[in-house]
């Protein structure tokens, strides 16, 4: 994860003040990742200070068991996009309760629920939590990352009761053909969608628990299979985290090889999303056109990297496979041309556009509040793109241009995806020019950068096809994982889905909205 180093001088001086307020000395905060220890007592104040900062978003919240006793280490990851840095605050929580973060930064709510289920500590206040991963079975004794919560009191989980004249339309978990299992509780007044909630616990596989005790390379195998559609982004984030922990610097051609894989990943996912949009709007013939493009892109992946879904490209410390440059140069224009033609035809088909326009509108305020990322956020006008905000090599030199749109409706998302696809093609051609191939940086000296917890933990990120993918890894001195945190973009963007579905939309719009979000359940129920 050799991100280009920026020094404090290049940054907004306000940051130094903020860090000082957090008790940080300036120089230590040089790199793209700033770590700050915040005592539990001052956590609330610190969150207020950081949240008040412009272009500071709460990217992730997670906990890990401390070495001693029942204490829990609460980590908040802030994306300080204007400062091109991530800020990681660590707080040791001894008590059962900790300051309610979601009251200050609403984006933290989902993670608060996760942490309750995994570590048995819950935010202060009486607001109920939601069920995230644990199935609603009376004696559910799934292994936890930490201590299991006490038998939950009645007020922990908000009951999904429907009152008055609305009724709940149950949809799933076994839904249409060829889609993932997901349960919608669709509350409707008969015409419009009054409310919508999701259950994903029936796909929860405890991946983070699974990774504990494995070597990073062994774990990478499971990370790639956590979210198979768009596997490169999370894999890269995880590998980057491990590299940061191990102090590895992948060779440039390997980084370019990863980046090419990432852009190919983006291409085929946006093609698949286009096909799904056509399907949801009943435009079968357009779906066929998009699927031709999709299949050709997948075959291009196979020709270039040996796997249709680009598994096994990313490796700890580099790339296990390099692109077949000849095949890419030969087939990419044709495959992308298919997508381009299909998209142009779609954008001139009014019956299609009418279904997309003003459907599933998501306000910029909501996107920012809920901490959404990727095309969904960019379609509301938020220019969040890790490739530009936190450029890890090789993106620092490439300067990808961030595609945004206004309106936040399905059409806006569609346009953003198309623009990104075009940009990806440009990036791939540029990187092919610079040369890409396999390669791996071997750990210098003893594996696992023998040492203290700080040295053996790292944060990694990548702009997956769905947006910012984050990973945080802590290794023990034998180089085995003690705690791995995976945060694919799906985890973030699902929480905007019900917002987009609610109110002015009717039943038939929901598949369209789902297609335009193009998320996976596997990614959020990991």
């Amino acid at each position, binding site marked *: 994860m050799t991100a280009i180093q920026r020094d404090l001088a290049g940054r907004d001086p306000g940051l130094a003040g903020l860090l000082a307020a957090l008790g940080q000395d300036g120089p230590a905060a040089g790199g793209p990742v700033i770590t700050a220890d915040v005592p539990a007592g001052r956590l609330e104040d610190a969150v207020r200070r950081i949240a008040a900062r412009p272009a500071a978003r709460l990217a992730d919240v997670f906990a890990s068991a401390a070495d001693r006793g029942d204490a829990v280490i609460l980590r908040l990851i802030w994306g300080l996009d204007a400062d091109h840095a991530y800020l990681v605050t660590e707080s040791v929580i001894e008590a059962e309760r900790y300051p309610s973060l979601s009251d200050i930064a609403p984006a933290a709510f989902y993670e608060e629920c996760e942490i309750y289920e995994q570590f048995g500590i819950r935010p202060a206040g009486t607001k109920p939590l939601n069920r995230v991963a644990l199935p609603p079975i009376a004696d559910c004794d799934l292994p936890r990352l930490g201590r299991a919560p006490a038998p939950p009191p009645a007020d922990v989980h908000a009951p999904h*009761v*429907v*009152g008055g*004249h609305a009724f709940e339309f149950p*949809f799933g*978990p076994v839904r249409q053909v060829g889609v993932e299992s997901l349960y919608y509780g669709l509350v*409707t*007044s*008969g015409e419009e969608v009054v*409310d919508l909630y999701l259950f994903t616990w029936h796909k929860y596989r405890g991946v983070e628990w699974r990774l504990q005790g494995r070597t990073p390379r062994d774990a990478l195998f499971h990370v790639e299979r956590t979210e198979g559609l768009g596997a490169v982004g999370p894999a890269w984030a995880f590998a980057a985290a491990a590299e940061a922990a191990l102090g590895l610097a992948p060779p440039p051609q390997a980084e370019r090889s990863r980046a090419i894989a990432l852009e190919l990943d983006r291409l085929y996912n946006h093609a698949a999303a286009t096909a799904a949009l056509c399907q949801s709007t009943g435009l079968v013939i357009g779906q066929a056109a998009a699927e031709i493009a999709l299949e050709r892109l997948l075959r291009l992946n196979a020709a270039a990297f040996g796997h249709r879904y680009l598994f096994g490209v990313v490796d700890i410390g580099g790339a296990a496979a390099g692109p077949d440059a000849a095949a890419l140069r030969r087939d990419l224009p044709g495959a992308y041309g298919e997508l381009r033609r299909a998209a142009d035809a779609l954008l001139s088909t009014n019956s299609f556009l009418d279904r997309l326009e003003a459907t599933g509108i998501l306000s910029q305020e909501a996107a920012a509040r809920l901490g959404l990322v990727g095309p969904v956020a960019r379609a509301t006008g938020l220019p969040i793109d890790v490739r530009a905000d936190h450029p890890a090599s090789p993106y620092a030199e490439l300067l990808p241009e961030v595609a945004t749109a206004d309106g936040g409706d399905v059409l806006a998302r569609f346009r953003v995806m198309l623009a990104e696809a075009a940009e990806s093609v440009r990036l791939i051609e540029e990187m092919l020019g610079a040369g890409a191939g396999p390669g791996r940086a071997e750990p210098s000296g003893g594996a696992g950068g023998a040492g203290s917890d700080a040295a053996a933990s790292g944060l990694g990120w990548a702009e997956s096809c769905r947006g910012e993918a984050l990973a945080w890894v802590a290794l023990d001195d034998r180089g085995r994982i003690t705690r791995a945190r995976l945060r694919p973009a799906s985890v973030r963007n699902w929480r905007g889905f019900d917002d987009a579905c609610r109110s002015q939309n009717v039943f038939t719009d929901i598949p369209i909205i789902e297609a335009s979000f193009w998320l996976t359940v596997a990614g959020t129920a990991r």
Partner: protein
Amino acid sequence: MNPLPVLAGAAAAWGLAALIALIAGASRPWTRACCVVSGLGGAAALAGGAASLISGNSRVVTAGGSVVVGTLQLQATSLAGVFVALLGLIAVATAAYVPRYHEPGRGTGLYLAVYNLALLASLAVLVAGNVVTFLVAWETMALLCYLLILRRPRRAEVAAGAFWFLALSETGFVLIIAAFVILAAKTHTMQLDGIAARAHLVSGGWRDAAYLLALTGFGFKAGLVPLHVWLPEAHPVAPADGSAFLSGLITKLGVYGIALFGFWLLPGGPAWRGILTMAAGAVTAAIGILYALGERDIKRFLAFSTIENIGIIVTAFGAAMTFWAYHQRLLWAFLLLAGLYHVINHGSYKTLLFLEAGVIEHATGTREFDRLGGLARRMPRASVITFVGTLGIAALPPFNGFVSEWLIFQGLFQGFRTGSHLIAILIVLAAATLGLTGGLAIYAFVRGYGIPFLGMPRTRQAAQASEARQPVAGPALLAVACAALAVGAPVVLAALARAMRTVTGVSLRPELLPGNLTVIPAHTKFSGFSPTWLAVFLLAITAVPVLIYLAGRPRAASVTGPVWDGGIVAFKPRMQYSAMTFSAPTRVTFDALYRPSVSLRRASDDPAGRSGPVHYETEVTPVFERYLYRPVIRAFEWLADVVRPIQSGDVNLYLFYVFAAVLVAYLIAAL
């Protein structure tokens, strides 16, 4: 034969029943006795009504006589015969229903006394031979119904509902008096047939005035929009049989009044009179069913559906008058006939439905659609009987509602025979409105039957409902009547047609029924169908698949499994259509009329996006109460405040008032 003695017997029986109830109604056996007597009276009335249909107008019977109130005159006309027969049918069914429905007690005794007297008064209205008799009987009937509604006077909404009824009824009564006074004054007679005979003496203007007064006055009782507001208020608070009586008969008395003026006392008249009546009917029908779709309370729902049916009947009458104005006597008589047939049909199935609503209320303790569900499994008898009534009122073959509505439509479709394009268009417009009404009615009764009886129970009361010891015979009798009135339609129509000749002077016999059980809408070569054979055919085609299934069952291997639920943990009652969600599309389409107000509370409005409980309420604005009646009421209150100073309590002042009044009276007389 002369029906009057039979009817006298009915009256006597009801009087006796009232006496029994008054004296010893508190105990169960005496309650039964009272009901038996009352039922006998009903049977007598039924027979009498039939007799008066067969025998046509019977001669007048005069009794007593005094200068002040005039004489008591009774007369069984064939027009009234229809209503008398209906009265008898309802009385019999109710008599079979009451003993199981009402728990014995003093209140029940009084209630039954009032009820039987109300039957008596209604009969009197129908056989009244002169104005005074009619008016006295009418007012008695109204007051007794007021007491009927006041079965449980402690509850506020009961008092309110009863008051709505009384207020509107009295308002209408004043107009009715005025109408009669005009006719009596211009024809110099108080006898109804006398008035009918000399109606030509009345000048056109007065005729129209009298008719309009009558239409409005009786409209209050019949429930023409916007004079309908008492029905949804009074029906829910009365006991089930009480509301059945109100809907089944009392509203029909209003229809009788309209028919009395429009077809007997003042037949014919200018076209606009018919058009106006038709328009009033069409509007009533459409608005009635639309409001029914917005209702959550079964009895209010049924009340609005009554308004709809009254609208259909009045539309038919109005169209008939229009045809008269264009010398289409055949269609005139035909539509009157169709309207009267719909009176009988609606009387039968609406009574049935109200009685069953009472059964449901007793079995579950609620009348709210959204607290019921799944009753078909718990209450099979009630569900079958209600289903018959529902098919009837939704005008679906092979039941009676279909026959009468088909006849009305066929009549309206012949608007072109008026020869005037404008009129033809107006009539067809009315037909279109009735078409919309019919469609919405089916929608409304799919809801009205499906929500309470199908699906899964929505509350514990619904899940534990039981129909043991619930009345069956009464509704079942009416269900049979519904079927009979459909299958036997040609016969009944033939009898009606012959009877109506005495009213209309037009013979429909050959045109309407060329034989072989086929019904023809007045003009041959237009259309025609046979309700009897339709019923037989429908039974046959339903029987065929059943037979095939029964024949094929032994061989076909079948596995019974649970419903496919998409793999959810468990179905919840909340996961099915509720009454309000089912009718949401109409609420959206006609929101200009409903002006629905929505209140929504949901946990997911929390900025953090947590999901949780949702509560969604939508209310339909009672437009007429709010924008028409409330101002009127305010105006009266204001007026009351204004005139209060007159009442000083000073005796001399009051004497002066009397003197002034007498003086004014003399002056008027002198001029």
